[in-house]
């Protein structure tokens, strides 16, 4: 199953052009949804206003090379390792979901655009990337949804309570899980039985919800969060620090230095 390109089997009754068209439509839906989100929430306007304010309050003039270095460090540390989530389960689950999703999407695009023709021979690397990515997304997303969601973890809400904020994570997990099941059923050679068709339809529907629901879900956070991290670190570098005090110049263990507990005191 893991070496099987599921889109190659699909090409027997759906043309590669149609599959490629579907991917392009999904990308267009993400762009459209994000633009509508930007217009509605005015968050990009807020970002630029905040940047102007930070520039006005800057204590140090930072050069372009310093700025580039701050941005590169932010990308390598804050964004690539989602450092804002601290050390713990939430970060591990987020990293699993994030890198799983990236692998799953890259694998899908490469296999659909390069290896979906019935005569093509798919290198085993891409199906492995696709399956491992989907599995990581299911594990990370499922772990988050069942156990680590803050409304479940900190507010003691039951895990089965579904709210609008779940649209993104549920659609993401559903698309990866249905994709995996569809690929598994395909590998069983069921001779045109209904099973894999059902999961193919579920896979398509979950993708439509995921990419078509950008305006209503928190999908666009993956674009805003890196921007916010870069702005935060630039503000630290130029001394404006969003009006925050500088890190304390105090001896280690100035106070009791108590260890933060997990937010689970209800």
């Amino acid at each position: 199953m893991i070496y099987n390109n599921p889109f190659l089997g699909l090409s027997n009754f759906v043309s590669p052009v149609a599959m490629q068209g579907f991917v392009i439509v999904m990308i267009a839906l993400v762009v459209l949804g994000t633009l509508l989100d930007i217009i509605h929430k005015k968050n990009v306007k807020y970002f630029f206003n905040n940047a102007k304010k930070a520039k006005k309050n800057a204590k140090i003039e930072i050069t372009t090379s310093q700025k580039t270095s701050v941005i590169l460090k932010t990308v390598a540390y804050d964004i690539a390792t989602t450092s804002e989530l601290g050390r713990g389960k939430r970060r591990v689950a987020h990293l699993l979901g994030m890198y799983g999703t990236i692998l799953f999407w890259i694998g899908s695009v490469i296999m659909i655009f390069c290896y979906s023709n019935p005569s093509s021979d798919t290198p085993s690397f891409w199906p492995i990337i696709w399956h491992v990515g989907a599995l990581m997304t299911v594990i990370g997303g499922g772990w988050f949804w069942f156990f680590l969601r803050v409304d479940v973890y900190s507010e003691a809400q039951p895990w089965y309570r579904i709210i609008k904020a779940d649209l993104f994570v549920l659609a993401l997990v559903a698309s990866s899980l249905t994709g995996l099941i569809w690929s598994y059923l395909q590998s069983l050679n069921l001779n045109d039985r209904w099973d894999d068709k059902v999961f193919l339809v579920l896979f398509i529907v979950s993708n439509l919800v995921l990419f078509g629901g950008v305006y209503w879900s928190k999908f666009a956070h993956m674009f805003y969060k890196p921007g916010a991290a870069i702005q935060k670190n630039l503000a630290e570098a130029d001394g404006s620090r969003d009006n925050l005090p500088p890190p304390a110049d105090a001896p280690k263990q100035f106070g009791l230095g108590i260890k933060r507990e997990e937010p689970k005191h209800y």
Partner: protein
Amino acid sequence: MSTFVYMTRCDGCGQCVDICPSDIMHIDETIRRAKNIEPNFCWECYACVKACPNHAIDVRGYADFAPMGHSVRVRREEEKGTISWKIKFRNGTEKNFVSPITTKPWGKFIPKLAEGDIPNQGEIKSQILYREPEALNTKKALPTVSKGSFKKGVYY
């Protein structure tokens, strides 16, 4: 004055929800970020501002002087055991203070509530707070207010 959350900074970790003594910091149902659900009931105790690991919470001044550009912000560094304050006045004057964290460690003077039983939905929705009445050193039932007596517009 009351607290508010910079949504781009918040990662929904729940530290403010956990620490708010008024139980007014909650999780938004659309974007799963923290929000102050009842600014009128905020004591301005700064507990959530200090607890936030991402400095995502700030305190909004009253409308008559907030636009004049003052700011009171705080940085809590638990590994150093320090709380740093930066007070910015309307005329641009800045004052910086560093104080030690004096909170007692969990488990020594403060009970380890994280290890207690998870409350059920009925307990969460009741007017009695977690571990009441025994945490108040009494076994008597505490008085409650019937919902019918709330003034119009107040819903709980």
